[in-house]
């Protein structure tokens, strides 16, 4: 802490500021004023060197010149720029700056200089970080060094410098040392700070962090069973659908190409979750991740539900979250595949169409095993909305269309050995377990193409979708 006078006046100036140069004779006129110079210790003569900006930071100076009066060790008055009456009142000296204009605004303090922002951020708050610092040598390429250390999913990552992690942490009000979850497969407790580190690696902006934190919380639950989802040879991975005002606030895409590339929030939030599982939980392909094929969305899979254009209540509301509250729902997901129906204009026909696509999840002859998510596009939703169908109406129609004839799905039927064992194929069977089909509304305004996202084994033996509110 700089040695400020217990009782007296402190001035902070820089030579680069015309107003500071203007008031140089005034400072000379004021006996006993302690002057700190931000850029040139020789300006004005007798100034204290504050080129490291320690005094300026301690005083929270935003403009130079700044004049501060201390009494009994506490700041009691402050003025910025040059305003004769203010300076005279603060110093108690009349007749200051004869011949000078009455008022001149000051200049920006060097503490506000964008070029110094990172350095000053780290200097002021770097000590609050608990993560191990890794120093790279001058010969190391930053991006290559991160690959070499195994912290990447195969794409370049953003180096988690102290400044970037500190800025990321500004995206949440939660304490950096708060434990968010215990991350499988190695069951490692993860703090808000460690999630922030991985959010930086993934390319997130700070305002995404609350969504990433909620997704980590949701994924690291017994119900979601991220360990099983990772370890299975089936290719699904965690996907995130976001509801509530946060989606628009951070620019998540729920419209055209919502499941695709091109939107930073969509691309990086899911990636941050996967990097937490990789870098904190230790879940890596070739290690505990045993996927036979996997899919491209395992790099990261996140989108928002189009609530404004939906004929139904938001997914999060249907899962118990209050309307208007932001939430994430994490679910096991394969890659999406489209279901085209450009003819159906009645809800019954369209529901049967969508059911036909859903029947292929895992295998057209397997039932009650794998969950799925149906992404209904706006042009299909319009058909249901026009007929007044609720989400429950659609779920009911799908369930009816997906009650399968045992003769079609029994092992050997259709000349295919795979299928339901004969002992179970004694009556019509539902394709999905109760609660095993989730319906979301998203997509662009043109195109009668919905999508089915196959899941993984549902329920206690596999993975159940988990919804968590997004906390600021």
């Amino acid at each position, binding site marked *: 802490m700089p040695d400020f006078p217990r009782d007296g006046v402190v001035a902070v100036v820089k030579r680069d500021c015309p107003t500071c140069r203007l008031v140089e004779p005034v400072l000379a006129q004021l006996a006993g004023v302690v002057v700190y110079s931000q850029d040139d210790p020789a300006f004005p003569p007798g100034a204290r060197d504050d080129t490291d900006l320690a005094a300026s930071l301690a005083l929270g100076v935003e403009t130079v010149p700044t004049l501060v009066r201390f009494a009994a060790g506490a700041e009691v008055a402050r003025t910025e720029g040059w305003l004769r009456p203010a300076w005279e009142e603060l110093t108690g000296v009349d007749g200051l700056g004869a011949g000078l204009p009455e008022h001149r605004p000051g200049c920006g303090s060097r503490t506000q200089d964008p070029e110094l922002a990172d350095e000053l951020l780290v200097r002021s708050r770097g000590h609050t970080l608990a993560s191990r610092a890794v120093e790279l040598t001058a010969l190391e390429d930053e991006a290559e060094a991160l690959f070499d250390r195994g912290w990447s999913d195969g794409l370049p990552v953003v180096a988690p410098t102290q400044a970037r992690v500190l800025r990321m942490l500004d995206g949440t009000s939660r304490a950096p040392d708060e434990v968010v979850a215990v991350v499988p*497969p*190695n*069951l490692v407790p993860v703090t808000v700070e460690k999630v922030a580190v991985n959010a930086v690696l993934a390319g997130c902006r700070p305002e995404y962090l609350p969504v990433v934190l909620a997704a980590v919380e949701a994924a690291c639950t017994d119900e979601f069973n991220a*360990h099983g989802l990772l*370890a299975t*040879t089936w290719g699904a991975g965690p996907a995130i659908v976001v509801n509530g005002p946060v989606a628009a606030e951070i620019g998540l895409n729920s419209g055209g190409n919502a499941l695709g590339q091109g939107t930073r929030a969509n691309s990086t939030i899911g990636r941050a979750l996967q990097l937490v599982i990789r870098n904190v939980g*230790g879940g*890596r392909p*070739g*290690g*505990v991740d*045993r996927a036979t094929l996997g899919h491209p969305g395992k790099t990261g899979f996140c989108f928002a539900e189009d609530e404004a254009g939906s004929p139904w209540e938001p997914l999060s509301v249907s899962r118990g979250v209050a309307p208007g509250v932001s939430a994430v729902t994490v679910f096991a997901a394969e890659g999406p595949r489209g279901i085209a129906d450009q003819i159906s204009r009645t809800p019954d026909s369209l529901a049967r169409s969508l059911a036909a696509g859903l029947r292929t999840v895992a295998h057209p002859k397997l039932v009650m095993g794998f969950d799925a998510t149906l992404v209904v596009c706006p042009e299909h939703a319009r058909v249901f909305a026009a007929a007044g169908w609720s989400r429950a109406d659609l779920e009911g129609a799908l369930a009816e269309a997906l009650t399968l004839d045992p003769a079609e799905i029994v092992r050997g039927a259709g000349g295919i050995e795979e299928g339901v064992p004969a002992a179970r194929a004694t009556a019509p069977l539902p394709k999905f377990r109760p609660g095993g089909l989730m319906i979301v509304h998203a997509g662009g305004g043109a195109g009668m193409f919905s999508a089915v996202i196959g899941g993984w084994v549902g329920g206690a033996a596999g993975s159940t979708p988990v919804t968590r509110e997004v906390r600021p």
Partner: protein
Amino acid sequence: MHDFAALEARGVVAAFCASTEFVDASAAQARALGYREVPAVFVPHPIQDRTDDETRALADAALDAVLAAVTTGGPAR
């Protein structure tokens, strides 16, 4: 492997059993849980498409190794 660790922690003798495709995965998970070595038996892959008779034959063939795994040595940390 977590099940193995949980059983061992309760004083129940355990061994890890999987098909040969999971040698690497079990080693990675064992290391993460602090084990240098875990008594393990790996049966020939694949598993899912075996008939019941084939699966019984696999189990019979592995029985001696399983008994040895739970009666000799033990995990090393």
